């Protein structure tokens, strides 16, 4: 079952993230993502208009600006004013000032596994296979030919070389819907390798926030996530010139012909966490090495052009993918946190790089927030506040008398003194794994801190194997499992308490990120399981439409649509804005409650969800599996907000959903550009009028190259030209000469059939509406045909 079974190949290293950050400013509503436009209302307050933006916007973006929502976060803040003479002294930082472009204006959306050779090898940042297990208690030999070899993730070929894989958030304002588009993952060297082409893109899963409580981790540094994908065995390329027993064993196990029943191929899972920013020169060879926002602003103002990627620590596992296992969701029984945990003998808060006080949450992608004393090294009273842990997945192998736990992203960490990618795990003492039965908790086995501390974590990439206690005979365990769900216990105040409990009925999907265009419907399958097996008869799936709050700047909460307590008003303060209740983003074509079906002898059930686009925006469709006894379903209005951590004052055991363990699809309903908006005709009509010299352009030159280009730029390309200046080095979007010169390439990279697949799709952010794509394709056709002097017929998405 998944990477929890054997054999396994472990790897670890670092993931680099080079997103373009101008479209996801958590503090300034620069980008109107819903309409794929610059936020002209906000920018007008700054003196930036449709008339002057080509001169004003970029210089404004590379300077600190005052937040629209004050005191939202102290993360990645700047001095109020930065000029070329500014002395970037940290004492000048103002908590209410952030860069307009944020930390990576020249990011290209790339992500990759680090392979940096430092002048001193001890500072190398490599991503390598680190170990493996042929079977339980049968570790691979350290000299195995597949070990200590590079792990590489690549994008599609651009010219004669692979492009980067791409990090794309479905909703740029939220931290809980990241996707990795890629083309291939390769493990090994030229002689001994496993090469796996993409079949399913990866999504961020199982958020743990905070995973590391250091207040020196800025931006998304405190968040830990899991990414996963799978490939069919037939698609793999394997060479074992080095005669690696570990690779041979994995190959045999993945092969449907030779592996265990149900083997389908390869599963790759990795956790990314402890993300560090401003690391140029330490994780790469980039010459410009700003240590902070202030220096970054200075360098950009000096005209320097460079990327400034962030780097996460990463551990991962390669294992066997089996029939029925979702590609992008970790396999196994899902155990979710129900109680916060206090560590055993924690470092005192004055030794920790945290703020004393109560954890109150994360504001969007901001750092960990605490109330109370906000001095970094506060009084030496006690340790940190208690935190909920992350999700764990478990497999019970009765025949092996073994429980295997996926704890890649389970335990909260801390850093002493300097911050690094490696946080120490809090010590929660000995932990028990067992079953919550009607008769109470039944222990299957236990494990100590030595199996989940940092060294153990790095050795087995966060997987923990717990043998059955001698007192737990096989029949008893089977009996317990039939009566209840798995649970984890820790000692708190002298009492054993369950802090993590199996969610018996689960629902999730590989369609985690969904793009829907105007007039489109989307259909996807949700897998429903009970105790990671087939659901009982009369199981249903209820779907509910949520929205991220606040809407346009760093969102950290999911609220049910519509927001009953926040009646929508036009022009509501950005910091409190909710969507118009009259404009749901999607409708549920086959209803909000759909049946779950399971074929005979199938260990899972399936429900089909159909969405129809209703209004542009970013709904999050949350899954609530229900058994017949729950009928009629719980009214959606009763569903609470979904947050990263336990809501304040939430009673324990907490049984609500968290962003880190809910099943959901993040949806982007793209702009409806065929409809008249704001009193204007649709772009689809306006573009044809422009070319034909009709409508509002009557009397102006017809079939005019220059005027039509100006329309294309000012209605479509300008937003990308402003937000993604990295394009200047490839295809400057403000230059007709350059865009015409790359027209063959342009019409290919915007192809609709590349949206869900190619890493080279443009725009990388995937926010081109169907109507604007049609306009660009039509204009591209005019360019290629050298502007034939003929009228265009009306354009229609219906063809």
């Amino acid at each position, binding site marked *: 079952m998944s990477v929890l079974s054997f054999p396994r190949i472990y790897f670890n290293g670092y993931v680099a993230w080079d997103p373009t950050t101008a479209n996801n400013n958590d503090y300034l509503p620069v980008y109107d993502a819903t309409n794929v436009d610059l936020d002209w209302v906000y920018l007008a307050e700054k003196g930036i208009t449709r008339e002057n933006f080509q001169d004003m916007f970029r210089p404004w973006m590379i300077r600190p600006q005052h937040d629209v929502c004050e005191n939202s976060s102290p993360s990645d803040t700047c001095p109020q004013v930065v000029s070329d003479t500014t002395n970037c002294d940290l004492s000048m930082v103002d908590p209410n000032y952030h860069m307009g472009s944020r930390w990576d204006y020249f990011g290209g959306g790339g992500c990759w596994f680090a392979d940096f050779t430092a002048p001193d090898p001890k500072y190398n940042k490599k991503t390598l296979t680190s170990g493996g297990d042929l079977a339980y208690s049968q570790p691979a030999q350290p000299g195995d030919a597949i070990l200590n070899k590079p792990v590489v993730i690549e994008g599609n070929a651009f010219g004669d070389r692979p492009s980067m894989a791409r990090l794309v958030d479905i909703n740029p304002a939220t931290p809980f819907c990241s996707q990795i588009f890629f083309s291939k993952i390769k493990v090994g060297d030229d002689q001994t390798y496993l090469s796996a082409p993409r079949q399913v893109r990866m999504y961020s899963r199982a958020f743990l926030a905070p995973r590391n409580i250091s207040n020196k981790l800025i931006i998304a540094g405190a968040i830990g996530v899991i990414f996963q994908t799978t490939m069919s065995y037939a698609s793999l390329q394997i060479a074992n010139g080095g005669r690696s027993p570990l690779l041979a064993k994995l190959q045999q196990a993945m092969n449907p012909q030779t592996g265990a029943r149900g083997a389908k191929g390869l599963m790759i899972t990795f956790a990314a966490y402890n993300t560090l920013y401003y690391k140029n020169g330490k994780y790469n060879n980039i010459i410009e090495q700003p240590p902070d926002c202030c220096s970054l602003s200075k360098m950009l103002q000096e005209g320097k052009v460079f990327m400034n990627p962030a780097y996460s620590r990463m551990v991962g596992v390669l294992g066997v993918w089996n029939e029925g296992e979702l590609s992008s969701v970790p396999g196994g029984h899902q155990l979710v946190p129900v109680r916060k945990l206090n560590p055993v003998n924690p470092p005192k808060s004055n030794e920790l790089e945290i703020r004393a006080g109560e954890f109150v949450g994360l504001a969007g992608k901001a750092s960990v927030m605490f109330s109370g004393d906000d001095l970094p090294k506060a009084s030496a009273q006690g340790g940190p506040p208690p935190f909920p842990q992350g999700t764990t997945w478990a497999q019970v192998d009765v025949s092996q008398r073994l429980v295997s736990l996926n704890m890649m992203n389970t335990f909260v960490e801390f850093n002493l003194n300097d911050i690094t990618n490696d946080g120490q795990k809090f010590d929660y003492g000995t932990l028990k794994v067992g079953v919550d039965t009607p008769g109470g908790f039944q222990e299957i086995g236990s494990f100590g801190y030595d199996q989940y501390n940092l060294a153990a974590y790095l050795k087995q990439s966060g997987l923990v194997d717990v043998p059955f206690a001698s007192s737990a005979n096989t029949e008893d365990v089977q009996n317990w499992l039939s009566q209840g769900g798995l649970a984890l216990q820790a000692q708190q105040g002298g009492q054993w308490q369950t802090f993590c409990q199996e969610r018996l009925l689960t629902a999730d999907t590989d369609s985690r990120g969904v793009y829907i265009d105007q007039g489109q419907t989307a259909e996807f399958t949700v897998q429903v399981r009970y105790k990671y097996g087939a659901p009982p008869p009369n199981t249903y799936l209820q779907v509910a439409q949520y929205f991220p709050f606040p809407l346009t700047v760093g969102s950290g909460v999911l609220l049910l649509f519509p927001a009953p307590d926040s009646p929508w008003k036009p022009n509501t303060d950005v910091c409190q804005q909710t969507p118009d209740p009259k404009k749901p983003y999607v409708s549920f074509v086959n209803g909000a409650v759909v049946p779950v079906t399971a074929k005979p002898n199938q260990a899972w059930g399936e429900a089909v969800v159909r969405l129809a686009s209703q209004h542009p925006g970013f709904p999050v469709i949350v899954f609530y599996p229900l058994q017949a006894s729950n009928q009629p379903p719980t009214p959606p209005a009763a569903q609470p907000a979904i947050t990263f951590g336990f809501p304040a004052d939430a009673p324990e055991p907490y049984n609500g959903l968290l962003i880190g363990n809910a099943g959901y699809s993040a949806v982007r309903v793209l702009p409806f550009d065929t409809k008249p908006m704001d009193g204007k005709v649709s772009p689809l009509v306006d573009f044809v009028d422009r070319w034909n010299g009709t409508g509002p352009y009557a009397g102006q030159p017809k079939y005019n190259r220059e005027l039509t280009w100006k329309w294309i730029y000012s209605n479509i390309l300008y937003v990308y030209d402003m937000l993604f200046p990295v394009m200047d080095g490839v295809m400057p979007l403000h230059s007709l000469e350059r865009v015409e010169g790359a027209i063959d390439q342009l019409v290919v990279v915007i192809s609709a059939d590349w949206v869900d697949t190619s890493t080279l799709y443009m725009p990388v952010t995937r926010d081109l509406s169907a109507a604007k794509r049609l306009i660009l394709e039509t204009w591209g056709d005019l360019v*290629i045909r*050298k502007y034939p002097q003929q009228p265009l017929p009306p354009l229609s998405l219906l063809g």
Partner: protein
Amino acid sequence: MPRLTFVLLLFHLLVVGCGPHDTEKPKQPEPTPNEPPPGASLLDVEAIDKLLGNQESSAKAIQAGPYEYAWQNFIALNQPLVGPDAKRWELWRQTSTVYLPDGAKPAPWGTPAKVPDEVLANVKSLPDAPSATVWHNLDTRIQVDGLVLLDKWNHDVRYQLLMNKDTFDYVLMREFYNVNGQQRAAEENKPADFPWTSYELKTSWIWIGYDVEKFNALKGKYYIVSAYYQVFNDDGMPVGYDGGYAALSGMHIINKTLPNWVWMTFENVNNAEFTQVKLELEIPAGAQAANQRYQAALRSAGSIFANYQLDGVQTVFTDPGGKPTLLANSNIESAFQKKSSCITCHAIASINKVGKYFNIVDSSGGDLTYYVGDPPDVEAKGFTTLDFVWSMKRASRQFTESPE
């Protein structure tokens, strides 16, 4: 070399000087393929001209020694090898005078190209700089993949295409100098079929302008000419000219001695130092050997062209093992050298009945790359072939009536 717009060269223009010659191809004694005529030196242009003047002997020479053949072309084209006079190819027709912005019929062969007054008015002389014999209009900076290459001073490398008289004559005869004529060929299903004497060149240039530092860095290493280019604003409107000097960094040479043309490319040996790219395809051993011999001969003759190397020659889509053949110039196919097959990409040069050119991008599998090996069947997709001549894509439409 996707959409590389080379110019055709009529062989007999190579024979002596640059004046017009008759197009009759006298029968020549068949030389030994792959070798200069007996008793002649490597630089004996008369012997080379004789060899290249006969299709049969040329074809045999290609088969027997493609690298030798390529160098013979290079030597012939660059006559005189020393001295300030214009080289033969410099007197060919720059495509900027063939494919006119308004799609009009170009002026007859031999008509001097007009150099913009703004360029001439701003001429400056640099110490040791050659006097202008021919002004080169380096009218594009965009490579076929849509990208630009920068030199070490962060200026765009620029490009120029030229054609010989027979190519020019054929373009005129078929009215291919505008899209209308090309589209008509598609409508009438009359593919292009250039004469065997056709030649095209594509040249790449490091821009010097009047920058003394750049000039001093490049002089003695590069062939330097007087040049200019038109500057456009972001909306594609011309706003003036830059004039000055430019250094020849690369030269594609193609001719139609073989039905699928012969594809040869040369570049300056110093390009890795002065541009932001290096040659990534290995120069074949035979080409390296030819380079050594010809460079030594040119050095002895005191020619600047001793600083140029043959990168390779391409005459077939695949090798005997079925593997795609590749050819690239670091300054012309900079970002896709290892996926560059000139012959394949030019084999898809074609246009359809609505005047749309075949897209050069191979987008299969979500990749953005270029065709290598056997080309796709463009005719099956409704396109009419342009006989490998992508330079025709530089043509504009001729507007017979002003839009209302």
